[in-house]
């Protein structure tokens, strides 16, 4: 921190002692990843501020502020509970259907908000990308941060509701929730990182993502129990269905906050499946970062 301004000679001397650095992002060789991680770590304060900005700016001028971020999922819950649960009769087969629904919606909400938010994050911050050098991973990561913030709010409601309905039990089952959270976070971040870079080159990506997120929502056992879906699938498809990370994350949540006191059939080896998914996810995250690093060199001119 320069409180007393150093003399020009001091400055020159200090500069002479500094090593040369590559301008811009550290090289895209394999060693680049660690230096890029360091680069991001150096900017962690900025990451916090950007996350803060996203959260604050979203409901800045509304009277109810961030309560709106609660009202949306609650309304979603109400609609599904009434229409799917009562009218279509799903609640007849699933005890505590509201908690079941909300556990799934909360888990899936985290995934979809991270993917959706980070996909458009580079373009939304194009002013900064073009004018200042920052490790560009910061922007998708700040979208991840703001998604986690929203998730936390929903999560608190989920806990309260689960406690009220009596489905919350302090047992080892809660670890499934943690595992589910981790798997969803890793995959969503990897996918978000990749798509945010692709979206710069091809703007169609963000619209495609919206459609796919809707598809995946119905493709995950949120509104129905996974056993219903598996009945209608050949074995190989059921394997893919049950082992995909979104399904695992959602089931992990249901297992933690709903299943122990309700009538659901437990997915065998859920812990092992989550662990494998997590390991694969970390490898994917690493790969996504490499691709991102490759693509980001031309961001400034493509925007």
């Amino acid at each position, binding site marked *: 921190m320069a409180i007393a301004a*150093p003399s020009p000679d001091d400055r020159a001397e200090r*500069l002479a002692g500094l090593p040369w650095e590559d301008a811009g992002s550290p090289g895209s060789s394999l060693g680049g990843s660690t230096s890029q991680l360091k680069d991001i770590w150096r900017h962690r304060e900025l990451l916090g501020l950007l996350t803060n900005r996203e959260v604050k700016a979203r409901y800045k001028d509304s009277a109810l502020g961030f309560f709106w971020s609660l009202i949306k999922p609650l309304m979603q819950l109400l609609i599904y509970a009434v229409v799917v649960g009562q009218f279509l009769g799903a609640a007849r087969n699933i005890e505590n259907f509201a908690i079941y629904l909300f556990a799934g919606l909360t888990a899936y909400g985290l995934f979809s908000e991270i993917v959706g938010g980070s996909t458009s994050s580079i373009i939304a911050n194009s002013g900064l990308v073009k004018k*200042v050098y920052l490790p560009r991973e910061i922007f998708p990561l700040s979208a991840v941060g703001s998604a986690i913030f929203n998730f936390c709010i929903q999560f608190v409601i989920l806990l309260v509701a689960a406690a009220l309905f009596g489905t919350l039990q302090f047992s080892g089952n809660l670890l499934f929730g943690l595992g589910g959270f981790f798997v969803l976070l890793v995959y969503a971040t990897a996918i978000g990182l990749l798509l945010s870079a692709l979206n710069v080159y091809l703007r169609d990506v963000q619209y495609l993502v919206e459609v796919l997120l809707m598809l995946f929502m119905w493709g995950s056992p949120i509104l129905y129990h996974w056993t219903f879906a598996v009945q209608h699938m050949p074995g190989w498809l059921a394997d893919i269905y049950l082992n995909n990370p979104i399904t695992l994350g959602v089931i992990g949540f249901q297992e933690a906050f709903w299943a122990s006191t309700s009538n659901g059939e437990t997915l065998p080896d859920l812990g092992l499946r989550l662990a494998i998914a997590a390991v694969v996810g970390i490898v994917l995250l690493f790969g996504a970062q490499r691709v991102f690093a490759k693509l980001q060199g031309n961001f400034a001119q493509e925007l």
Partner: protein
Amino acid sequence: MSTSVPIVRLDDVSKRFVIRKEKSLKERLVNAGRSAKHKEDFWALRNISLEVDSGSTIGLIGPNGSGKSTLLKAIGGIIEPTSGSVKRRGRLAALLELGAGFHQDLTGRENVYLNASILGLSRKQTDYYFEDIVEFSGIRDFIDTQVKFYSSGMYMRLAFAVAIHVDPDLLLVDEVLAVGDEAFQRKCLDKIRSFQAEGRTIVIVTHSLGQVTELCDRAVLLNRGEVLFDGEPHVATTEFRDVLEERRQEEIAEHPEEQEGAGRIISVNAHAVGKAVGEPVAPGDDLIVSATFSHSEGLDDWIAAVQIDSALGQVVYGTTSKRIGLSLPRLRSSCTVDFVLEKVTFGEGKYFVNVSLMTHDGVHLADRPQIASFDAPHFQLAVGTVHAVPTASVVDSVA
């Protein structure tokens, strides 16, 4: 000059831009086979090697599209060169745009922290400088208001206040000095001078040649992605004016101006008495502007007018045959009028001559803006459009 060490090193840097004309998936699929046709690439930078010493102030100049902003962005790491390497050391701050990263919905205070963080200050450092920043910006009353309610001037002041409190070794500046009112610009320039005194390195992209000769100790002239000249600022600015003049002449040659109506200005040349056209017009020379007119239908009682503009387009001199009291003969096939300007004292720079043909009541029949030009030579002791030899002495001094 104190000791200096290299702080930026560019080695054979080239940058190619590929311009694709389509952005969406559909367009790309449809045009996949013919994609070469829909691509256009050009070299924004070609084989640039450059070394910047600490403590120096370098001006990057060149016509629009010459690659100076690209070069600045390459130094800043915002653009990755296609080939070659850019190395630098020390702390960098880039003022490519004041207030980049300001968020409209956040308050001034929040934006100060955000922007400072973007420019590389930690939260602690920002806390330390916060009072200074607010003081410098002069908008204390509005610091907790959302910046979208700021006037553009307030916005600039706050952004600049943040930018100068970052403690950079290398400062990149792109045209930002051209905004704001005069007082604000002076503040910017003062701050840059104090940065110089502190041994910081500054790289400026600017169109104001005056600023280059005034602030920089080295200038790099770029044209079509290549370094045309690298060295003394006043030599670079002269060269730059020649480049611009060349381009202008090319444009004129490509699109000869249609002169409508019966009045014509056939030719104009401007030179010092006793010197050829194109030689510099030194202070004390007599300047001759010689203009030839014609009118296909014949014109009695007409006026010939001459005006001299500085390179920035400011009028520095103007006169007419009517002011001088010269009555001109009937104009038909051709008539040449010589204006002699005695003992001109133009300051350093390029000047353009505009000539007009008017009726006696001042209706313009033909105008030829910038039809001729001349240079006034470099003068070490002063800047500006007026030449005068300065002396100074101490009259009274109290210790």
